């Protein structure tokens, strides 16, 4: 029943990466989430990443129907879901085949041997059974008749059909993993009690199978219970595990409450941004007006209408949708209305790789509109700080009366991590430019001296009736103007307005060496990968390497040039063919930038970054 191969795995780890993989119907997302939540409550730092097929219900046992959930837990700071898997739980041959690449020799694989039937092996395109042909001999393979044992555990529970019995085998694997990492079962048992309230047989079944897996692992003397991962040193406070898209939605809710405005979302479903819509539609209790429009264009235009009428207006999308929204974003820029555009980037171009991550919409965000049409561009860099940057996008749009494009990506949007909960009371103030008091010679284009933001009289305000539009307008009155000099002036005003945002954003910070041989530059969702790679090199003794990560792209922090000048070499790392580096080269022509790019729909791996940086120091 059980065979183990050579034990090569270290016994104590400060962090481990566990990946649960199985058929779409095997409940791997749930299993992973349970392990995540339990570990979070234990006090570990965490990063997770789900990986599910784009097919909704792929054929059972097929290679493309494999669904997975990876979680990285540690007693140290965890900034990525991890590259190399320490423990792979594979519920069928297809899951093993498609995920084996991530497991380094010597590490552990748990398989459900019951699923290694001729039929499933054929579906996974295995010519011979990998559990028997010696191809796994460099791994520590724990073979478990999981389905059989699940059935055995449940033979006395009444009211269960065969399907429910087979489906609970994921809890057997969870029980095993709990024992291996010395986790309490308590959280999951509580979870069953809540989830299956009133369905006693299901509570009993899941609890029984979880226990069965746990005690099975315990009785196996072959599994060393040595991975005692201590709680991580984290800032004290109340935490929760949050996914990037949820954090984005919540940041918007917080901004609406803080600013005292109603939240309007105009959106159209698109992977991987749709979960923001899913989240916001739930919150009618906060007065959220979420409008699923007929297309991307109606999504953004309805938001522009809501902004004109005085709401905090949002539209959410991904790359192809941003392309469709371009003209309307230009209108919002031209009429100078506050608008938050959230682009959860995915692999492009065209339909590209909808479920994979990439940072290739940066230049589209910067320039993807007709005419001279600068907008504010910012980027979130971790699942949890999607909250802060969604809030920030709203703050900047309202305070500067212009569209803000917030870039996140599939990697941080679908990933999750601990979030130290922010109370709205502790968030920065958000001002806006609404006016009701009529002054002499009043115009809708009266501007704030410091920011150049125009004022924001909204329909319903007596005496402030006015017309705005996409045609060029007179600097003073806001009426249509075809005057050549006025057009040039207005073009500069709109650009200057965005540039002045630099006075309202924090300075660029560096981590590790404050000056030295090499500066690693990144932006957006690659923060975790870059941070851990630079940390590793730094820990290894290369003390002259610094790291600067950009969240503010247009405009950039004021001290950017100063930071760049402190290092001998600069490398810009992006998940695209070199978009941010092209902006840096234009803005700071006196510096030489080298670059590291990856366009595989995947995040950076630690090894590739470490290797690349070592060549430069």
């Amino acid at each position: 029943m059980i065979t183990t191969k050579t034990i090569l795995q270290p016994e104590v780890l400060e962090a481990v990466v566990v990946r649960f993989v199985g058929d779409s119907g095997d409940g791997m997302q749930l299993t992973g989430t349970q392990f995540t939540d339990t570990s979070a409550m234990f006090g570990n730092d965490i990063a997770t990443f789900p990986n599910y097929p784009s097919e909704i219900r792929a054929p059972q046992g097929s290679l493309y129907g494999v669904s997975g959930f990876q979680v990285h837990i540690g007693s140290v700071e965890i900034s990525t879901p991890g590259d190399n898997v320490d423990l792979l739980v594979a519920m069928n041959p297809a899951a093993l085949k498609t995920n084996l690449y991530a497991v380094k020799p010597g590490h552990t694989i748990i398989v459900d041997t019951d699923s290694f039937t001729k039929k499933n092996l054929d579906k996974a395109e295995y010519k011979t059974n990998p559990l028997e042909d010696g191809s796994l001999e460099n791994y520590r393979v724990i073979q478990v008749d999981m389905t059989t044992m699940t059935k055995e555990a449940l033979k006395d529970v009444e009211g269960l059909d065969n399907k429910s019995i087979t489906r609970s085998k994921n809890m057997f694997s969870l029980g095993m993993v709990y024992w291996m990492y010395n986790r309490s079962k308590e959280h999951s048992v509580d979870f069953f009690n809540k989830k299956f309230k009133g369905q006693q047989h299901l509570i009993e079944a899941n609890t029984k199978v979880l226990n069965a897996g746990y005690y099975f692992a315990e009785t196996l003397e072959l599994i060393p219970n040595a991975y005692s991962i201590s709680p991580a040193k984290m800032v004290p406070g109340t935490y929760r595990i949050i996914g990037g898209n949820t954090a984005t939605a919540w940041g918007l809710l917080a901004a609406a409450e803080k600013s005292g405005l109603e939240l309007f979302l105009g959106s159209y479903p698109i992977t991987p941004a749709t979960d923001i819509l899913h989240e916001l539609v739930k919150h009618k209790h906060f007065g959220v007006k979420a409008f699923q429009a007929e297309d991307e264009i109606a999504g953004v235009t309805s938001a522009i209408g809501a902004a004109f009428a005085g709401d905090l207006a949002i539209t959410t999308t991904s790359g192809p949708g941003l392309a469709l929204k371009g003209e309307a974003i230009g209108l919002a820029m031209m009429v100078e209305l506050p608008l938050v555009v959230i682009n959860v980037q995915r692999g492009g171009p065209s339909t590209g790789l909808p479920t994979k991550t990439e940072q290739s919409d940066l230049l589209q965000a910067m320039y993807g509109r007709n005419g001279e049409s600068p907008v504010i561009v910012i980027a979130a860099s971790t699942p949890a700080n999607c909250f802060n940057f969604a809030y920030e996008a709203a703050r900047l749009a309202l305070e500067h009366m212009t569209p803000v494009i917030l870039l996140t990506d599939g990697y941080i949007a679908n990933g999750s991590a601990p979030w130290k909960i922010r109370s709205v009371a502790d968030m920065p103030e958000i001002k806006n430019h609404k006016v009701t008091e009529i002054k002499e010679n009043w115009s809708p284009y009266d501007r704030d001296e410091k920011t150049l933001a125009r004022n924001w009289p909204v329909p319903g305000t007596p005496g402030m009736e006015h017309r705005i539009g996409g045609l060029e307008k007179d600097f003073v009155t806001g009426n249509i103007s075809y005057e050549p000099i006025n057009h040039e002036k207005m073009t500069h005003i709109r650009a200057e307005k965005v540039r002045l945002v630099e006075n309202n954003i924090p300075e660029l910070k560096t981590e590790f060496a404050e000056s030295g041989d090499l500066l690693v530059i990144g932006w957006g969702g690659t923060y975790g990968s870059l941070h851990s790679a630079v940390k590793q090199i730094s820990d290894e003794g290369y003390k002259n390497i610094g790291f600067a990560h950009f969240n503010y792209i247009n405009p950039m922090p004021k001290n950017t040039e100063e930071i760049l000048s402190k290092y001998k070499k600069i490398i810009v790392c992006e998940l695209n063919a070199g978009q941010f580096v092209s902006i840096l080269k234009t803005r700071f022509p006196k510096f030489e930038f080298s670059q590291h790019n990856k366009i595989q729909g995947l995040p950076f791996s630690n090894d590739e970054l470490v290797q690349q940086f070592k060549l430069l120091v």
Partner: protein
Amino acid sequence: METTTAVKKYTFKDFTSDQEVRWCPGCDDYVVLRSMQKALPEMGVNKEDVVFISGIGCSSRFPYYMSTYGMHTIHGRAPGIASGVKLANPNLSVWVMTGDGDSMAIGGNHFIHLLRRNIDLNMVVFNNEIYGLTKGQFSPTSLIGQKTKSSPYGNTQPPFSPGELALGANARFFARIGGNNPKDMTQIFIDAHKFKGTSLIEVLQNCVIFNDGCFDEVTDKEVKEDRQIFLEHGKPMIFGKNKDKGLVLNKLKLEVVTIGENGITQEDILVHNAKEEDKTLHQMLVRLEYPLATGIIRSFSDVTLEEREDALTAQVKANSKFKKTDDLFFSGETYEVK
């Protein structure tokens, strides 16, 4: 629209802006503008609560000539913007001013979805069967064979009938009116405003430059009484200079009959029911070429999107334990790090 504040008294002058009107002399757009300025004081709405949203085209200059709130947006997208304005502030009287190209070509998708949703706003389509601002190309309502700058040998693309398209998209209110009929147009605007739901008004608008006379055979003063039937809810479908022609249903078709001939009396003539939910007869009226149906063809009261949304929101609010975002953020699976 019912507002809680006392409604101020206005005349049409209160709704004229300081901007010079720049349509071609003789254009029916002037008629629409003046009719609107005359209708607004009759609607019982405060000026600050009126918003005109337009797309691109000759008709879309409309908001600049009104002294209300307004936005001149981008081609075809006025319905989206107007929907956002109305959903953000349901207290506003929102008007989409658009043309046949703006609403049915580039904006066709938004046009049908606006009607489907039934948001309480109004849309005026200036249909001149041509692109004016781009100087004379065929539009989605241009006729087959019509010679235009982009169809010098004649248009080969069959047209939409705006009314049929609208009813197909489940328009609850559809009216059609000649661009030379300010009196009835004014009343239709008032009725459209009062109607709860999306109101669509098609104005048969002559373009004096690129499609002059396109509606003459039905709108010309000499012929209009014989060629048009002006429909009024609850009144018999009678038309003609001598008020002796009427419509009856013959099998599955509308038929023109003469009262006093073949034993036909006024009793035999159909009575217009604009408020009927079943749109079969409204569709027949919309399709009718002789006489051309004008006036309010359909005015069926239905629940609006805002009403549905408001009811849901009230229900969710009443049942929710979340009053502030903090309640949400600190709910469920949280844990303490000490």
